[in-house]
């Protein structure tokens, strides 16, 4: 079992863990933007940089992304050294130039002493920091691969394939949920959801008319989990009413000839 030292604390690790895994387990805070437990680490945002050194290394250090660097026995990690803080401040300075209107980036930058960006702020841009979480969640968690990246360098952007409403999208809006800067727009009504310029019909509760998922997502779930087609016909509130009705009937059952109620519990 490898052991590493993080900020002076000796910590036991499992083989194959990253520095970020170990910090997370031990409640050591390392800031991240493009990291999410449900998808593979990407190391795109560079915010989780930490300083590493090793007794076997002849007096030199390195600065690596904690989300990708695998632990090795004897590694010495500093999560808040002056150089690390300077690196994070630079990253946030650049991100603030890219997204000057993002409250999320602003408050993160302020934590590292950056109130205004030292670069030319991008005008008329949205708050996308190109962390890729939307693309990765759609690919790895949902498996729909409905969106991806388009272009390279300064013209790189998150986009639907060919910039058309994506045919493979199921309208689950997981991309919007995981976006750290709340860029992805979801327009929602009781019967419709519009996301990525595509309009989705919502599954409407047969009893009360409330909705929470799209028809496309329902079909995806029914297929993926091999469920009967009417599994999602009732909303959660109406399902609770059905269950309550059953329990009420059971609870008020009487023994033939007895006046007292059964002692019926359910767990």
């Amino acid at each position, binding site marked *: 079992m490898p052991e590493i030292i993080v900020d002076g604390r000796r910590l036991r690790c499992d083989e194959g863990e990253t520095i970020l895994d170990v910090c997370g387990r031990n409640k050591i805070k390392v800031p991240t933007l493009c990291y999410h437990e449900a998808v593979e680490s990407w190391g795109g945002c560079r915010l989780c940089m930490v300083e590493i050194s090793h007794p076997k290394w002849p007096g030199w250090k390195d600065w690596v992304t904690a989300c990708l660097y695998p632990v090795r026995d004897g590694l010495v990690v500093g999560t808040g050294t002056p150089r690390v803080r300077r690196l994070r401040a630079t990253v946030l300075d650049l991100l603030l130039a890219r997204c000057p209107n993002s409250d999320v980036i602003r408050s993160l930058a302020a934590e590292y002493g950056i109130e205004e960006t030292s670069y030319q702020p991008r005008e008329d841009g949205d708050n996308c920091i190109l962390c890729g979480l939307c693309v990765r*969640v759609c690919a790895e*968690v949902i498996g729909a691969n409905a969106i991806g990246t388009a272009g390279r360098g300064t013209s790189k952007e998150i986009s639907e394939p060919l910039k058309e409403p994506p045919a493979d999208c199921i309208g689950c*809006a997981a991309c919007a949920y995981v976006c750290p800067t709340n860029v992805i727009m979801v327009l929602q009504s009781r019967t419709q959801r519009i996301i990525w310029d595509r309009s989705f019909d919502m599954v409407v509760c047969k009893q009360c008319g409330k909705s929470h998922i799209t028809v496309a997502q329902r079909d995806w779930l029914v297929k993926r989990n091999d469920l009967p087609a009417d599994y999602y016909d009732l909303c*959660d509130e109406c399902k609770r009413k059905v269950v309550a009705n059953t329990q*009420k009937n059971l609870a008020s059952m009487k023994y033939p000839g007895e006046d007292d109620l059964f002692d019926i519990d359910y767990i």
Partner: protein
Amino acid sequence: MKQLVIKPQLCTNCHICELACSFKHSSEFSLAHSRVRTIYHPEDDLTVPEICLQCVDAACMKSCPSKAIYVDDDLGCVLVNYSRCVGCLSCVGACPFGNMLQDAGKVGHVFKCDLCGGDPVCARFCPTGALTYVEIGPLAGRQQIVLEEEEVKVG
């Protein structure tokens, strides 16, 4: 292992369980934040408290595409790992009993009974014993309906 036991015929529809649950989890007194929901039936004058049944083979867990729902075996509790959750709401419709709840504020955020980590406040505050948190005998499964001395396993 202790389990939450619900006796609907002792419930007086006082909503104290819901208020306690809401306050414990959100520091607000709001029925919308409660993980336990009481449903009143005026025709029989009976109220049924509805709460996550901590299923052995949880449908919510099976439906989650990011494997964010897991079981704490020591507590006998099905829990959501919010670091893994992607807010797709697949679990909400998956629960056959409607016990996975959605946050009215943040869209995509779900919540469910977490047994308060081992000391459920609903049971602590229930004035009539409709909700209790007690040790269950060795023959019990996770779900059961007790008919007097006979123990019948359900599910």
